[in-house]
């Protein structure tokens, strides 16, 4: 007997069924084992964490499944360290010694080279991490992936980010959305390619707020302090920080609503419904959690972020299971070592 093979997707198609009590033993043993194994367990900890999070994430009628292993992540990390971290370390040493030996120009050039290399690596790592995660994510016995290697994306990421800084960084929303599109358009799930077509409509005003507000507050504060005495100088800086925080929040909330809201997979569309205030509560909650537990609460951050994403994620459109066939994208073996080594996420 077969379930219905075609149907409309309900708005609340995504659900998260995990509970923090159930997750606590996993988080705690991961945390302590990671410290006790001097960090080596980290890869296995991540695999275990994702197995829990994925298997408590429901899409329509069934849970996701994570099939990545700790072993492959560890090997990926070692590999990334060898080809990325070691050259970076050696180049840095060389630059320092050249600076000490009175060769500031050469040292500067090498430092610039290090930056370029690191930026390239950053883009590459982000692409590969996403590709790896999709290739290990299964739903209804079907997985995702990509046949694109990511070298081209790394260059795009470098030049688009650089261009983004032009014009007082006002091209940044364009850089962010266009890189998101490039990344996701290379990905697929089952037989379908993702289709990402985000533009910057509605993002520019928020970006302006993010960039200008803290600076205006800081300048106003400094002007105030000059006229009233420097004793209260910390207040404008505090306000500027607050402005930066609020501006960032307001921008990124809209950014994620935009990029996820314009993402399509076959006939499925996605929605991200977190309001600015929802995101603010998440981040403030993170900060309170970490501070109140003197850092121990940090073991819950990935759980909080994942469950937040899933709870606010929705889908629309149609799924045709009969034609939702197995992915033919190659299965990468090197896990997400580069992203791991550089400590960045996939989204």
């Amino acid at each position: 007997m077969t379930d219905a093979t075609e149907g409309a997707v309900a708005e609340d198609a995504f659900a998260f069924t995990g509970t923090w009590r159930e997750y606590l033993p996993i988080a705690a043993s991961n945390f302590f084992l990671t410290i006790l194994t001097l960090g080596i367990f980290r890869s296995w900890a991540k695999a275990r964490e994702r197995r829990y999070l994925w298997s408590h994430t429901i899409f329509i009628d069934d849970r996701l499944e994570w099939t990545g292993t700790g072993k492959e992540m560890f090997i990926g990390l070692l590999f990334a360290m060898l080809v990325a971290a070691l050259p970076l370390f050696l180049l840095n040493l060389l630059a320092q010694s050249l600076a000490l030996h009175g060769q500031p120009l050469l040292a500067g050039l090498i430092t610039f080279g290090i930056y370029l290399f690191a930026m390239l690596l950053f883009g590459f790592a982000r692409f590969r991490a996403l590709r790896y995660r999709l290739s290990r994510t299964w739903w209804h016995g079907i997985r995702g992936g990509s046949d694109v290697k990511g070298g081209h994306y790394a260059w795009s990421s470098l030049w688009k980010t650089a261009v983004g800084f032009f014009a007082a960084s006002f091209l940044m929303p364009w850089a962010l959305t266009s890189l998101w599109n490039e990344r996701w358009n290379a990905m697929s799930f089952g037989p379908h390619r993702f289709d990402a077509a985000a533009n910057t409509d509605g993002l520019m005003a928020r970006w302006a707020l993010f960039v200008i507000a803290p600076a205006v507050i800081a300048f106003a504060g400094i002007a105030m302090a000059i006229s009233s005495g420097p004793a209260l100088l910390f207040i404008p800086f505090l306000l500027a920080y607050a402005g930066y925080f609020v501006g960032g929040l307001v921008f990124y909330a809209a950014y994620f609503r935009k990029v996820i809201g314009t993402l399509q997979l076959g006939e499925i569309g996605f929605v991200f419904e977190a309001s600015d205030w929802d995101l603010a509560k998440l981040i403030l909650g993170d900060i309170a959690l970490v501070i109140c537990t003197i850092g121990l609460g940090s073991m819950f951050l990935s759980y909080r972020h994942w469950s937040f994403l899933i709870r606010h994620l929705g889908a629309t459109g149609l799924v045709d299971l009969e034609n939702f066939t197995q992915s033919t994208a190659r299965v990468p073996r090197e896990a997400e070592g580069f992203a791991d080594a550089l400590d960045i996420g996939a989204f």
Partner: protein
Amino acid sequence: MSDGVAAWHYDGRSAVRRHVHLSIEDGALHIAETGDMVPLDRLRAAGEGKIERFGLADQPGWRIELIGDVDPAWRALLPRQEKHGRLMDRFGVWPVLILCGALAVVAIMLFGMGTRVAARAVPLSWEMSLGEMASGRLDESSCAGPAGRDALARLVARLHPDGPPIRVSVADLPIVNAVTLPGRQVILFRGLIDQARSPDEVAGVLAHEFGHVEHRDAMVALLRGYGLSLLLGGVDGGAITQTLISNRYSRSDESAADAAGLEMLQHAHISPRGIATLFDRLGRMEPTGGATARLFALLSTHPLSADRRRMFLEAPAAAASPALSPADWEALKASCRK
């Protein structure tokens, strides 16, 4: 509808979900609706916690998930779901935690010994060129008065009469400290000489640094720093672990250098009390916080515990004579004055 245990099934080719009924016959799982017979030993657990899901190693995406509670008789025949990972499921969470703790202690010890052995294995010529790189421009800011240099050379020769030479220079900086760099180099900062009231005090600090030179501690510290940053680089809580480990190491380095320094002082018939009196005096005048505190770096990088202080104060100093003649001492003090 046939009898059997209800389950969901995916064939791994399309996303169509089938509601099937299972039975076990002759060591194989029989799927009534498809007629498939899957040997039980080909099944592997693909669930999480209480989710009873099974897959096949050679057929990606092929899945069976039992609906509802599992019959105990079936449970015994099917592969067990992983709960915490293979190792912990087998031996229990606590034994694994304790074992890892013990292994961590052993690993830290081995790492400490390993970097020491590795540092000794680095050819001295390599270390010398590395030292060149590290000292760089400090050389240019060193005090070059010939009289002071000769006086310092006599003190160095007295403390360290044989073995490969140690290069000692005085850097014209107001910091009260001395450092050992790779490549058998010791740098005394002018601030230390300014603060010292007798040549014995300078000799005490120098002897301690020579202890570091003999133990190749600068090289060891370099390897350790790199090794740790490589090992713990991106680890959550790695910074804490790293600080803990490297503090632990450097404390043992310091006491080993103390012991070696004390021996050198006694061989050279110089009173070991100098270092204790210097630290006592600096401790009394130690400024709290700010940039001046950084100038008194000697106190923070070489904290003088009660034990260390006693060791230097109570060491026999019977046949001791001043570390430098009054004229040499004056010359050393004057070496940075233009």
